[in-house]
């Protein structure tokens, strides 16, 4: 069941439609409702390996629907500490619950100050309005 459009205000957003939830020097990453809606039902998640390092604005994996492939852009730099195995097994979970069960990876931040450069809800909504 696809989720209804929503954008939580406790997240930080990247202009490529990725989100980060920052807590205690770590961040959980995912893609926004807008991104999953544009892709359609996801059928594949190509995750990074645990321990891999990711750079802010760098690509850490891929998600696929039947008709499209999308790079996953990391909003922040760090090291992958956990991959959401549930998405590997059932990628459509992202469509069902993009901000909850549908998270993709958890990273340990190497530079928490980078978060200052990300978009807040208001700024992301302004970006969406231009699309």
């Amino acid at each position, binding site marked *: 069941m696809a989720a209804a459009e929503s954008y939580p205000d406790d997240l930080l957003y990247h202009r490529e439609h990725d989100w980060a939830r920052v807590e205690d020097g770590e961040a959980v990453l995912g893609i926004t409702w807008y991104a999953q809606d544009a892709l359609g039902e996801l059928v*594949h998640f190509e995750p990074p390996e645990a321990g891999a390092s990711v750079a802010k604005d760098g690509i850490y994996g891929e998600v*696929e*629907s*039947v*008709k*499209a*492939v999308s790079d996953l852009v990391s909003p922040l730099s760090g090291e992958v500490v956990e991959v959401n195995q549930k998405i590997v097994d059932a990628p459509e979970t992202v469509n069902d619950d993009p901000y909850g069960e549908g998270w993709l990876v958890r990273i340990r931040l190497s530079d928490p100050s980078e978060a200052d450069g990300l978009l807040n809800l208001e700024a992301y909504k302004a970006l969406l309005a231009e699309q």
Partner: protein
Amino acid sequence: MTYAALTDADREAMLDTIGVSSIDELFRDIPAGVRLDRPLDLGEPLTEQEIVERLEELAARNVHAGEELSFVGAGVYDHYVPAVVDYILQRGEFLTAYTPYQPELSQGVLQAIFEYQTVVCELTGMDVSNASGYDGTTVAADACYVAKHATGRSKIVLAETVNPQVRQVVRTYAPGFGMEVVDVPHRDGVTDPEEFRAAAEGAACAIFQQPNFFGCLEPAPQLAAAANDAEALAVAHVDPISLGVLEAPGNYGCAIAIGEGQSAGNPLSFGGPHYGFIAAREEFTRRMPGRIVGETTDVHGQRGYVLTLQTREQHIRREKATSNITTNQTLLALGGLIYLCWLGPEGLREVGETCMALAEHAKERLDLPLLFPEQATFKEFAVRVGRQALDAIRDARTHGVNPGYPLGRDYPEMDDAILVAVTERRTIDDIDRLVEALGE
């Protein structure tokens, strides 16, 4: 204008609807400087009858397999193609369809490709096959591209006993892939597993052929094990017609099986169009090149088929695609499917056994030294004629027998050797004629 469908009255009416006064005006966006201001320098248009006459005249100047008793193989073989293959492939619903982008109108081709993929997987002992590659040479390059991305390595190991055309094509492709090629020389007509293992160290893939270009049976399980030891993908280039009697590459540890499909269901056709096949273990599914058909259901719950895993392909993944291939060889692959269904498992074993038995008989009857006397062979073997092979072939052809392929063309040191191919279409009497012709 044989194939024009419009009348002058149609054209007038259509120009009127468009709102232009002439055909020329339709081309007004083409700058004057790049327009052709003269008729093309081609011949007078021909009628159908005249076309047939011209083509018959050209065809008559070729010496085809029905006019000369031929033992030429070396990669393309004169196996029997049954009438049902020709009949089905000429049905317009298959012949004149495009790639099955619209599955509701293309269940026939889609199901047939699914059946073809199944047959290729069964023959090779693999988990996934695509809908075909161009031919037996380009699928080798495809395998290298898969291996490069699967291993992150850039070395290709090629046994010298692999068909020289396959090796040439891999060499042509390799620089663009950022890969380099290392050859492993043959030892008495086959590949030494130890040398193969040493070469495969740090390689993306290691490719051998079974039976090899000389017709010899390679120690294939040991070669696959050698590649696996070095953590290179073991790639076997196999002849489908041999797979009723010879073990499937998937059953002795290969990662990828490739081959030229022509021997199973395609005419000689001066080298093409034929089909190449590529099949792999399941873990490489997402790295496979080209079209793949998958099973699904429709809105009513009926089983049906679609092109699937398309995010691998150029039209979606573009510069990151697993290959640029689009048009493949579907119709020829369907010829292969129909042929293999016509044979069935018993027939496939029998055709292999007949070829092999006839080839053994020819070896015995020919009073000539074998080039590689220690090796077992399948349907092809090399003999030494004690003089320039080209001279021996020329002389034999004056007796209406083409005894085989001169190996010196690819291996200069073998200029006294002829590679003799014996398919099930040759008879014991034919072999008698071969013996006579080479004995002259």
